[in-house]
Structure formats: C-alpha cells, structure tokens
C-alpha cells in the first residue's frame, strides 16, 4: 500500500493507522475561545463511513485468526447501524455475512445501508414497556442466535469485546498524539459501546496523565442513534471510569442544532452525535483559559436525514414543494 499516492490493492488497506490517520480539521467560526484550539477528527472519512471501522476491523481480524468466522460461519451482532455497516461490508468482501439485530427506531437510511452492504436484518421492537434489566432486546436476540447455532453464528459483541477498546488504543489514540505533536490537553468523545473513550483515553493518559478526557452524553429521553446516557451505560462492559475526568450531560436537542451549525458555518457535514460532542467541547472551551482539544466526529449527517427533518421541520418548509406533515 502507498498512503502518499493513495493507491490501494483493496479497501482494507485504507483502514486508519498512525501512518494513515483520519484528518483533524480545526473549528474556526464556531469556536467560542480563540485561545482554546478545537479540532474535529473526521471519522466519516474511514472507508466504510464511520469510527466503527476501527473496532469492527479489530474484532473481525481477531475472530478470523481464531477461526471463528469465515465462509459459512457468519457474524451476528446487535447494532444501531454503524458497526453493522462496517461488519456487513467487511464480511461481504471477505466471503461471509452479518446478521444485524437492530432496534426498530433506527433510521431507515441505516437499515437500507445495511441491506445494501449485504447484511441480513432482524428488526426488533425494543421499546414495548419499561422493564428492569436488559429485557429481551437486540443484545439478547443476538446471543440467542450465537448460543443456539454456534456453528453458524459468532457474536463479536461490541459491548463486551476488548478488541473494541484495543482498536482505539492502537489507532485513534496514537493518531491523535502524533497529529497534535503531543500537545493535546482535552479529548472529547461520546459514550456508546464506550470503546472509543476507554481505548483512546487509556492511550492518551499513558502518554500524558494530564490530558483531560471528557465524555459527552445526551440528556434523558434522547433520540441520538448509537449514544448512551448515564442511565443506559450499564449495557456496555467497556466503560472505564478511571480514564474519564468528566461526564457532561447535554440537552439532546442541541445535537441536531449543532449538527446544522457545523454544516452551515464550518462546512463540516457532521451527524448528530458529532453535534452533541461539539456542544460539550464548546462549553469546556468557553470556560477554559487555553488548550488544545480534539473531538471525535463519529460519522456524517447523510444517514440521519429523517432525524434532522424531525428536529428541524423548517428544512422541509424551505423549498421541498409538497411535503406531507402528517
């Protein structure tokens, strides 16, 4: 592979590494503090379109090495979309399949993408009635397939798989360290599986324990796909509170407001989770004298058009012509 000419023999050579990092792009107009530099790490420039390329590749390679996946021996995974898309595309290119267990409320765009990438979809209604514990949702449905037919399905389980954390320890963290020449003072990420914050946080702290790791979470009742708030954190086994200096809760509606701002003011077509992280990072920048912050922008807005329309109905009124409101 040749990263300087960007000529590759297959799509997997494009996956990120210290030598081939995703870009850091500076926030200019929207940064409230000129002495606190803010960079967005554009994870949608990964080959399959999101930060989830990193853990998906890490988990998949490990399973391949262990002989647990291959032609005829497929993946089954609970996914809100991005991990599923990475798995589906990677598995298809390598001769096997993903069975994606998805909650019903995820956007149609993501479900369609999973199908396009070759996944078998199983859509569940996870939100029947509040109940204690994990309920019977996507995670347990995936476990059921893996347990009942282990010869057919393997469950990577991104919520419990240390290879998820390891991906960020080996790639995201070193990339940021090198790109900022070790000057990073703050790292901002969201919480989903918690692989990003734990893996990147561990690496950055190992280099400089003073780096502040800030987790941005949406407020209760949120509809930001892929993210967890405090009350949903128990789902992941990968959260390591020892590397997180602060958890900031942000009104989830601001995820959609800031995603629009980033598109219109910075030219960054960022998705809602990036919008949420940006709001949190801006608040920290505004209250901090100086520093250098790096925000993970997990994916772009293309998969969230229906969510964006829901939160910004004025977009539809700005020249769609006929657009039913009911």
């Amino acid at each position: 592979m040749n990263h300087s000419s960007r000529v590759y023999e297959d799509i997997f050579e494009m996956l990120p590494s210290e030598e081939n990092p995703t870009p850091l792009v500076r926030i200019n107009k929207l940064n409230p503090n000129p002495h606190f530099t803010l960079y967005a790490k554009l994870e949608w420039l990964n080959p399959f379109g999101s930060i989830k390329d990193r853990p998906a590749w890490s988990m998949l390679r490990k399973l391949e090495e262990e002989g647990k996946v291959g032609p005829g021996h497929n993946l089954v995974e609970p996914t809100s979309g991005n991990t599923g898309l990475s798995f589906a595309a990677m598995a298809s290119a390598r001769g096997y399949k993903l069975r994606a267990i998805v909650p019903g409320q995820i956007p149609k765009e993501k479900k369609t993408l999973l199908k396009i990438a070759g996944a078998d979809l199983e859509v569940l209604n996870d939100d029947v009635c509040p109940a204690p514990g994990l309920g019977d949702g996507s995670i347990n449905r995936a476990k059921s397939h893996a347990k009942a037919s282990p010869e057919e399905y393997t469950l990577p389980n991104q919520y419990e798989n240390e290879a998820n954390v390891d991906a960020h320890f080996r790639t995201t963290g070193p990339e940021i360290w090198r790109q900022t020449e070790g000057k990073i003072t703050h790292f901002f990420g969201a919480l989903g599986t918690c692989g990003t914050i734990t893996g990147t946080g561990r690496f950055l702290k190992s280099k400089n324990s003073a780096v502040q790791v800030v987790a941005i979470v949406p407020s209760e009742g949120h509809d930001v796909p892929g993210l967890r708030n405090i009350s949903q954190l128990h789902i992941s086994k990968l959260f390591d509170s020892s590397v997180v200096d602060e958890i900031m809760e942000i009104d989830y509606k601001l995820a959609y407001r800031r995603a629009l701002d980033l598109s219109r003011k910075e030219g960054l077509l960022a998705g809602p989770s990036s919008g949420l992280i940006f709001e949190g990072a801006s608040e920290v920048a505004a209250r901090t004298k100086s520093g250098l912050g790096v925000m993970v922008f997990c994916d772009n807005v293309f998969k969230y058009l229906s969510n964006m329309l829901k939160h910004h109905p004025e977009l539809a009124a700005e020249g769609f012509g006929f657009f039913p409101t009911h």
Partner: protein
Amino acid sequence: MSNYSHPEVLVDIAWAKSNLGNPKVKFVEIDVDTSSYDSGHIPGAIAFNWRTQLQNQVSRDIISKDAFEKLVGGAGIANGDTVVLYGDNNNWFAAYGFWLFKLYGHEKIHLLNGGRVKWLNEPDAPLTKDLPKVTPVKYTAGNEHKEFRALLPEVLEASSKKDRNLVDVRSPDEFSGKIIAPPNLPETAQRAGHIPGAKSIPWSTAVNQDGTFKSADDLGKIYLQEKGVDAKKASIAYCRIGERSSHTWFVLKYLLGIADVKNYDGSWTEYGNLIGAPIENPTGGSSGTK
C-alpha cells in the same frame, strides 16, 4: 422461593436443566415477539403463538375449551404432564398462558422463574433451533375456573362500588393518559386514562433485574403496604390486552396468596373503546390519535 404462598407454581433454572429430556415435563415457550423462539429455545420446547393459537381468530375472546384441548393435545401434552411455561418480556405471555391453562383446569402448570432472558444468560443452559418431534395425544380439559377471569360488567361494578382492588399494571404514562399504548403496538383504544378507582402498580415492580420475581417480603411491601392492595378484598388486574395483567394476577394470587384475584383480559383495549364508560384521565389525553 419458599416464602411465596404457593412456591410450587415456579420452577427455577436448575430444576429446568435437570428435567430436560424428561418425557413427563413439557416446556412451552410463549413470547410477545413470536420470532424469539426461532432464534433459539430450550431443547425440547414447543412454542405457542399468542396471536394465532391462544386467541379466538373471529370474535375477540380466548380460545374455547374445545380449541384449547386440540391445541394442547396436538402439542403432545397429556393431562398428567408437568407443563413449564417461559417466554420473553419477563414471562408476560407465559403468564397469560399460565392463566389460560389454569382457567381450563390443568393441574401441573409452572412458570420458569426469570423466563427466556434468564435461561439465555445462564452459561451452561443449552439453547437450540431444532424443532422437537411431537406426538399428538388426546387431551381433556379439567375443571374450568371461570372465577379467574373478570368480564366487563364485573369491572364496571367494581369501579362504581369501590369494593375491590382494581390494579392497573400498565406503565405510568398509560395510566396517566399521556399515551394510549406503548409505541409501535397495533392494539390500542380510542381513549386514554384509567378505570376510576384503579391503583397504578406497573407489572415491572414485581421483577428483579435478572427477570426473576422479587421475594415474597418485597412483593408484600410493594403491593400490600406501599400501594395499598387490601388482601382481604377481591382483586382485579388489568392492562392493555391482558398479558401484563396475567403477570400481576400470578403475583397476587400465587406469590402473595390473595384468595380472589381475577384477570380482566379485555383490559384497556376493551374499556378504552366503550361509549360512555367513566374514565379518569389526569393528563387530559383523550383522542385516539394522541
């Protein structure tokens, strides 16, 4: 489980594991999501579909005694067999099945404590997609227990006389009238709110994080002391379509030992569609489109 009034109605995971392959023990899975069984089930278990097999397919009613006999016998369950029911959503429809089996007089009927999710997460509890070989047998229903079922006239009377415990087991938002039904469920009603005089005790207050039922002491504290269910009075439980209320019916009758407990399976999808029925609606939601 010994603190419960009738501990024999529950079996635990260890008992179930030790009875896999026992020809006199029949495992039956009944799920809210009827595709759950296909993704893996207890070896030897058959499945009943609550929509198509436990309901009359023409009028709104439970299946008739005749249809029940055909269903159970067709599943290879004999009168003397021990039947263990389990399912998803903390045994909602497994409890509904339990209620139906009791209604039609089957004696040896049990719930697997913790249901499907508990079994699934036990490291050494096997799961399979293989369908069991079933040999149909002749099955005859036992003594019917119509006293386990509340029909609308009795519910209206209980509400107006205020002489019984009316227990609404739905979510707080359904009880308060904020929503008519949980999201994405097709069975609904024209009006929101609850039956006047009903106490709100969501079904989920009866279960632990792992899906098992809370201890008798905890259940007594919640239902009898905190929520004010009077154990000396008759009780009627209701929900939306009768499955979550079967769960609470089970708790009140067998775990707490209240003598006279009925399940109103017509529930809110019957009551909330009635012309002129009295409704309490604290949040003011009233439209079928809400």
